[in-house]
């Protein structure tokens, strides 16, 4: 308990502490050369290289004179890199809406406007400095084999009931984000907690059933596929769509009907970028992904324009704006993680 507390404190301090950009912890990096000589676009992103490659290829098809340098890092690393940026990156793409919003709020982004982005809904942008281009729901993944005849839960109360009624079947076979290490997991958890008390019941129950914690959606998806996990809660829907297609027989993707939190992937142009016009072209391209169905298919992203997400009012889209700063408050974060830990690790 104490240990976690200190670890959390450390994590928060790391957010705020300025670290030199050079020490960026890169997960992957790739250069996409241009067909003709021209501008170079440095993208720093949280999206995996293979997921984003179709987008870059499509972009370069439209803009053959632009070479793209794509760097992948975790959302915290991305945030820190921009907070201490020396102008290395021209475009920052992240699934951590809250951290991206904080970058804008604290003045680390520059404004961009074009006719290409006017069709975006109001909640999908803020201050003309941050632009959402995908809608990605948090979903429940179920292994059909592990469920073994039990009815598929369609909402959280169903899920709670099934877990309560079959503790032995699910013990040690439930996975969810470790919100201490995953920015996206933290965002999903905080937004879930705002929507319903059932979130805390679920966390308590999962804690009793020895929930296993993961850093990333891909890990959970892999384990549900292999049958190692029976249920994974709050997995990024787009990843599961992209990764599970060959194994559809075993994995079922469930959008819970009581509410499903929608994450939007956002792009911003760092204030230090001297290449904003080129960055703007990429933002225009991302805002109009719906015109490229092949890319939609390849990435599993759901474009904001022409989104085919169903669920209507149960879709909990998170508005970009200062409200996202609330759960970034260090005391608020400490408190939330404390509460989460005491739910998960109660035994």
């Amino acid at each position, binding site marked *: 308990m104490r240990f976690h507390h200190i670890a959390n404190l450390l994590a928060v301090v790391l957010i705020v502490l300025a670290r030199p950009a050079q020490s960026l912890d890169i997960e992957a990096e790739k250069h996409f050369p241009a067909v003709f000589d021209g501008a170079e676009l440095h993208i720093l992103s949280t999206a995996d290289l293979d997921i984003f490659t179709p987008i870059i290829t499509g972009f370069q098809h439209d803009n053959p004179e632009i070479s793209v340098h794509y760097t992948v890092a975790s959302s915290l690393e991305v945030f820190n890199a921009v907070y201490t940026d020396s102008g290395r990156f021209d475009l920052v793409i992240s699934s951590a809406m809250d951290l991206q919003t904080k970058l804008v709020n604290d003045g680390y982004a520059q404004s961009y406007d074009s006719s290409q982005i006017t069709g975006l809904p109001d909640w999908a942008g803020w201050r003309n400095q941050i632009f959402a281009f995908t809608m990605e729901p948090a979903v429940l993944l179920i292994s059909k084999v592990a469920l073994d005849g039990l009815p598929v839960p369609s909402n959280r109360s169903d899920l709670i009931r099934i877990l309560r009624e079959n503790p032995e079947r699910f013990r040690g076979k439930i996975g969810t984000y470790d919100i201490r290490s995953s920015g996206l997991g933290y965002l999903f958890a905080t937004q879930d907690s705002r929507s319903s008390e059932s979130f805390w019941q679920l966390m308590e129950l999962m804690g009793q059933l020895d929930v296993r914690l993961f850093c990333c959606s891909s890990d959970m998806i892999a384990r549900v596929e292999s049958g190692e996990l029976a249920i994974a809660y709050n997995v990024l829907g787009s990843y599961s769509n992209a990764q599970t297609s060959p194994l559809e027989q075993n994995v079922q993707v469930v959008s819970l009907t009581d509410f499903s939190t929608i994450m939007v992937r956002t792009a911003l142009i760092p204030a230090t970028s001297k290449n904003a016009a080129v960055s703007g072209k990429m933002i225009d391209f991302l805002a109009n992904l719906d015109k490229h169905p092949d890319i939609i298919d390849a990435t599993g992203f759901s474009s904001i324009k022409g989104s085919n997400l169903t669920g209507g009012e149960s879709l909990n889209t998170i508005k970009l704006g200062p409200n996202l700063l609330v759960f970034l408050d260090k*005391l608020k974060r400490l408190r939330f993680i404390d509460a989460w830990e005491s739910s998960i690790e109660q035994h």
Partner: protein
Amino acid sequence: MNILTTHSIRRRLVFQLSIVAALLSVLFAYSVKVIGENTAQITQDQVLASAATSIADAIRSESGELVVDIPYSAFSMLGALSDDRVFYRIDVGGEAVTGYEDLPVELVPESVGQPSFSSTQYRGAEIRIASVIRPLSTLERSVGAVVSVAQTRSGFNEVTSGVRTIATAVGIAFFATAVVLVLLAAQSAIRPLQDVSTAVERRGPRDLRPVNEKVPSEIAPLVTALNRLMVRFSKALDRSEDFIAEAAHRIRTPMALVQTNAEIALRTTKSTQSRRAIREIIEAAEETSRSARQILDHATVGFRTDHLQRQEVPVTALIEAVLDRLLPVAEMKGIGISFQGPAENLICAGDPVLLESALGNVLDNAIKYSPHDTCVTVSAESDGDWIRISVEDEGTGFPVAEIEGLADRFTRGSNAEGTIGSGLGLTIVSDVLVAHAGQLEIENSKEGEGACVSIILPTS
């Protein structure tokens, strides 16, 4: 006659009222701007203060520790108001515990429930800060918590620039409307004055009746004074005309007596010297009574032209009457008069007394300026619309350069110095012809010596 004028009343009215309107417009626009800005400021302050208050209210003590739990709504309400960036800072016991610890909070509220507000610069932007204070107590101690919430001012600036635009537009519209109204008001204020001067200007030269137009009370004294002046002027004019006519009349009778007696004396006197003296007396008496008659004629013409009464006048009879009257005078000077009357009977419309007086003066002039043993020829002709009566003599003629001004009162030709005369004759003729819409033609006769004066009258 030139009148010394100061600035026109209308221009002065328009100018002064426009200045007033401009001042009022500026004041109005300024008030709108100030009120709008204050309202925008109050709105932003209230939202900031409620955000700060909701955060402060959520601070609580839990098992001996202070818990700061920012409500989600605190920031979403700020996000709903505008796209402005949000900063905050929470101090407990004088120490920043969370938020932007370098946020410059200069003003700390003195009492609970009274937020303090300040404006400053932070992270390259102008911000507005609201701070609230809340006393807290844990088991061990009592401390004060200060919650400060700040927002950049782009939303506020957007609102105020909108307000400024509206205020400016309202001010300009107000001014434009006021100027139009001022112009109309000045025009309507000045109209009675114009009406009076138009009424006075439209009068005939001898119309001295009082002004009867309805006038506003402000210019009533002016019109009353004008009317009194006209009454006095009219009386003075009447008196002097009466006096002149009376004087002329009184001179004529004794002069006739002088002339008669002188003629008798001339017949009975043998002395050449005396005869010459008496002849001069007769000539002077003649000239004096002629002048007196002309003065009387002039007075008559003045009166009758003001009240012209037209009737059909047979021209031949008119000429013959004049010839009858003047034939004795001509004979005495040894001057012959021939009249070539027209075949048809010419009729013109006019006042016979005036026409006779005009023709008489023309003929009288011709006789007067003709040398002995010459002939004066009178002729009349018509082209249907106009009747021309010409009187031609064999005298010295008119100096060509002076013909234009000869009809003016008391003006005589420069070569008439040897002859006694008043210069009134052609003035009377001219006045009569103007009243009859006729024309006076003065020229030297084509055959060299002599003058030709023509009276041209309309037939109807």
